[in-house]
């Protein structure tokens, strides 16, 4: 059964339409990736699911609940976590405070979840009193993921988590996403690093000019000559 179902979504910024009739499905526990050229509207899909763009038509359902028009704090409550691409930590707050903010909508900070996040990302526990803004890009990315995981979402949306990371950290980042997915969290991933993303995911979508172009299993998309030539650089 579909966990997230986006149907015929039109959205954009102001009067400018970016997405035209985008369809997207993520099943329970599935790992789905969206690839496509720059400006295809990949990030816009995530922002639109989160209600951060101008809605122009279509439907977004999560857990059979229409979430269009919900405030971000209510969307979080339904079980979607979102890690935006840039500026995804609070730089002047400590690592621990950043994680606490991730659990803002709960009455109390769930210590057991914080424990699990520290186990998953030991560097965060080591640096828990350090200001987030003083950490490296890779560490900030882990912190941003950790913050989103504080609510143990059913679906985690990651916008280019490998952007700006040193090459040897990129693999590590993908491994960690695999681990999160293995623990049962569905993943929706937007990536520039399309080949690696398609290799790792269950299914992929190729988005071009705000429209669905291809949709198949990751391996099938990787094997498709047309897709390879047009979007994966041969």
């Amino acid at each position, binding site marked *: 059964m579909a966990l997230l179902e986006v149907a015929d979504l039109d959205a954009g910024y102001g009067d400018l339409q970016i997405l035209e009739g985008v369809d997207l499905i993520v099943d329970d526990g599935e790992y789905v990736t969206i690839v496509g050229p720059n400006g295809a509207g990949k990030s816009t899909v995530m922002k639109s699911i*989160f209600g*951060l763009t101008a809605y122009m038509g279509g439907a977004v359902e999560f857990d059979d609940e229409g979430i269009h028009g919900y405030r*971000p*704090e209510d969307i*979080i*409550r339904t079980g979607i976590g*979102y890690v*935006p691409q840039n*500026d*995804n*930590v*609070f*730089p*002047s*707050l400590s690592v621990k*405070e950043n994680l*606490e*903010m*991730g659990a*803002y*909508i709960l009455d109390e900070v769930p210590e057991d979840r914080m424990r699990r996040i520290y186990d998953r990302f030991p560097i965060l526990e080591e640096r828990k009193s350090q200001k987030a803004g003083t950490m490296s890009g890779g560490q900030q990315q882990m912190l941003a993921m950790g*913050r989103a995981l504080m*609510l143990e979402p059913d679906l985690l949306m990651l916008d280019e988590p490998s952007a700006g990371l040193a090459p040897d950290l990129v693999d590590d980042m993908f491994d960690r996403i695999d681990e999160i997915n293995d623990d049962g969290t569905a993943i929706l991933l937007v990536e520039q690093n399309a080949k690696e993303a398609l290799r790792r995911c269950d299914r992929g979508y190729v988005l071009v000019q705000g429209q669905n172009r291809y949709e198949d299993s990751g391996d099938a998309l990787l094997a498709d000559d047309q897709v390879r030539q047009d979007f994966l650089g041969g």
Partner: protein
Amino acid sequence: MSTGSGQGRFSNVTAQDVVGGLLLLGIAVLILDLIRLVVTGGLPLGRLWAYVWNGIVDSLYIGLAAIGLSMTYSILRFANFSHGDLVTTGAFSGWTAAYLVGGLGVAELSSRLLLRADGGAQPGSVGMDVLSAPLAIVVGLIVAAIITIGVALAIDRLVYKRLRDAGGIPLLIASVGVALALRYLIAFFYTTETRGVVASAPQPEAPGFLPMETINLHEATLVISALTLILGIHLLLQYTKLGKSMRAMSDNKDLALITGIPTERVIFATWVIGSGLAGVAGYLIVLDRGQITINLGWFLLLLIFAAVILGGIGSIYGALAGSLVIGLTINLSLVWIPADMNEIAAFTLMILVLIFKPDGLFGGVETA
């Protein structure tokens, strides 16, 4: 191209470094001159101490007001020019309440309600000092905060909320309008007359360990209230969920939104705290100076802005440090220049520091 090597060994020295060096040199010269004056007896130690003490007192009420200005800047993203008139609002509303309570049965209701706009209800005869009317003074302090908060929330609802996403400049211009409207609304009721509303401060003898002979109890009230509030704000920001979410929102409003922080509620809290402190500051200034005027906050606003900018705009701890610098500067400059020109020193210092460090003294180390 070989221009880089041709510029000699001073090619790395920028105008900022030059200004910074001159600034430090200037400060060093002034400190040496200060020592010379003290050693030669040109400046009695007692007077130096008085300047420093007045500087600390001034910096505390400037600081109280600066916290609010800094908060509205970092969380609502605009320079609020009506902040000074919130200080004035606190002064008038608080002292009205103090007169209503303290002057009960002593003076005409109308004189008390309009804060002696008619010249009645002499502060001395009403007994308006902390020893004769402690209850009235405390009630006034609380009412100053409450009314100022109410006015600020009403203005936010009527004006700023509608412009929330319009950007900093429309909000700034709107706030200038709000400042004028607020000030003349106050003048409409209270007149533009400057008048004394506080009886002279009780001055008991100081205990031996203090460097002064007597304690001005009104000044002491100001210092203790301000320090308590500043400590309270610090604890709130560092250790409470609300405080942390305020810091988070001042870091990154969009991220706060997608993290589930209810941004409108944080904005509400920002107004409550910022304007409450501004109102209390206005009330305490009048307690210290003894006089009230509708230009109180407006004239103070430049100094508040100077403190906030000096500390690195948007940082509350920076604003407090900036207030201390401004407070000490306007008072210590009296060693060399006449009193009616001392604010020149504060603004000159601010301009020089900004050329030297454009992000302010604490820019880049955002704390809240």
